């Protein structure tokens, strides 16, 4: 039995390539193409965009023929939580300083895992914060304020 299009591994990969290739090609249309003698900034990206669309088409057709399903569940929740952990870290670094950013990063990351044991996570948070301070602030001498509620400059 063939999987649905949304679960067809190679079809999805092909579509992803086509979307990326088209985006690259269309954006590059606004850069001068130049000529073969003098390649402009638009030459290389346009060629690459077209090649990528070509590979995408081949892959998508292959996918329709072979119909291999995606391996295992998608695991969207872990993906979203870990992405959120990074985004929150970046934002907090700029607005509240190092320690809140680190604590939130570690807590959200741990929350993305299968098991969340409160005691362990608490110890882990303290240890990792100390490690981060030791390596990045004291070791590499980076000028981060630990708390900066008004933002760091």
């Amino acid at each position: 039995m063939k999987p649905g299009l949304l679960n067809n591994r190679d079809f999805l990969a092909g579509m992803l390539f086509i979307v990326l290739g088209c985006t690259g090609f269309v954006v590059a249309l606004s850069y001068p193409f130049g000529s073969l003698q003098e390649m402009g900034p638009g030459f290389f990206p346009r060629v690459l965009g077209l090649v990528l669309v070509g590979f995408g088409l081949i892959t998508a057709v292959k996918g329709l023929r072979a119909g291999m399903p995606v391996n295992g569940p998608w695991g969207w929740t872990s993906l979203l939580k870990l992405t959120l952990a990074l985004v929150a870290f970046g934002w907090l670094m700029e607005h509240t300083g190092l320690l809140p950013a680190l604590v939130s990063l570690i807590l959200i990351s741990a929350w993305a895992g299968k098991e969340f044991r409160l005691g362990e996570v608490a110890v882990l948070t303290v240890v990792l914060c100390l490690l981060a301070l030791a390596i990045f602030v004291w070791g590499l001498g980076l000028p981060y304020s630990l708390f900066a509620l008004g933002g760091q400059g």
Partner: protein
Amino acid sequence: MDVLSSLALGFSVALSLKSLAYCFLGVLLGTLIGVLPGVGPLVTIAMLLPITFSLDPVSSLIMLAGIFYGAQYGGSTTAILVNMPGEASSAVTAIDGYQMARQGRAGPALATAAIASFVAGILSSLMVAIFGPLVGKWALEFGATEYFSLMLMGLVFSAVLAHGDLIKSLAMVVIGLMLGIVGTDVTSGMPRFSFGLPELLDGVGFTVIAVGLFAIAEIVLNVARVEKVAVFSTDVKNLMPTWADIKAITRPTLRGTALGAFFGALPGITASIASFSAYMLEKKLARDPSRFGQGAIEGVAAPEAANNAAAQTHFIPTLTLGIPATAVMALMLGALTMQGIQPGPEVMTSKPELFWGLVASMFVGNVLLLVLNLPLVGLWARLTRVPYRWLFPSIMMFAALGNYSLNNSAMDVYLCAGVGLLGYVFAKLECHPAPLILGFVLGPMLEENLRRALLMSDGSFTDFVTRPISATFLLVTALLIIAMVLPSIRRRREQATADGGTD
């Protein structure tokens, strides 16, 4: 005698207290992190990359190389003790190594891996010292045309040898090349694909891509995986192999070294192919091939030797031609570029202390690895039991803070999250990230050389096929693609990579 005096220069660099300290730190950190289950050399190097950037180029490269050997050896330890190879190339070691561990011979298996790696490392470092300059001298004759064809060959090789579908791997190369375009165009000064973000004018940071693709995506894959791995834990005692063991591993180690060193010097051949070939060769030569898979000590020695030999000789194309053979080498190359050094044949003459310092540090690093590993094996064995739920928040911490610290910019962290997301989707769709990182690293140089070549030939492509060196590279590339498309060869490749995989 040129090599000897150059090596003397190298050792004067590598044996300085500072270099020794960074080499030791690298080997220690690499082993320490590499031995943790589920953390391979790529993740280890990617997460430690930002820390090395504050060092001077020589120290940073020596430390990175140390991390690399350490992580490689750490991966083998995990493979033997818990049958969880951190990377594809130690998967072969796991076959017989894990069986030895189950039979209570974990100690000799670990010692064999250490000794085989050491012998292979020393011999192949010698080969880097001898052949590196030869390749470099030859490459000095290359013009833009030759470089373009060589890079094309390297990229196609990386895609062909990646595990899985050829077209998808080629597409990943193209995506890498496109990511490499982001930023201000060198020739016209025009910003490309920067989408109005000032942070993108200098291009996407190398560590952003490396960490996102290899650390973040890997964590999500591991965390999202449902099944739990049952860990069989071993106590390591009787480390020393017997005389019979030593006799049994001498020849396999040397054969594995030769095979690995040869494969490693070819662009695109990964260490896993080298170790897999070495294993198959020993199985063919053995009087009783049925012992393989049941804990044959040769099955540990030969692939470990091949693995480590290839890991060292990979530096030949990387440093002398600027063409990385594997994803790990692409990380090394990217690190050098970030330090403002453009790898290529000129490096040897313009920065002899860098090239020879690194070569000498390979000898030092391998000695340190042996000295460090034999006594600390018990500690490493205990580390293999650290649960993953403690590990991935730590990797996340290094990934996030490391990326932030390079430019003090939150944008780098956001981009890294984006690359991680994309990398995870790619991994789910069986598109392998190694060709992408090679494309990303080589992209700007590929475009620049194409532009120069076309400028010189007045827009004609005939130069690429009429200049003999360039024509040879293109011919090899074409033959390779034709060979891949022929089904009979393709089937054989699937068999070989099914167990070998890619780095």
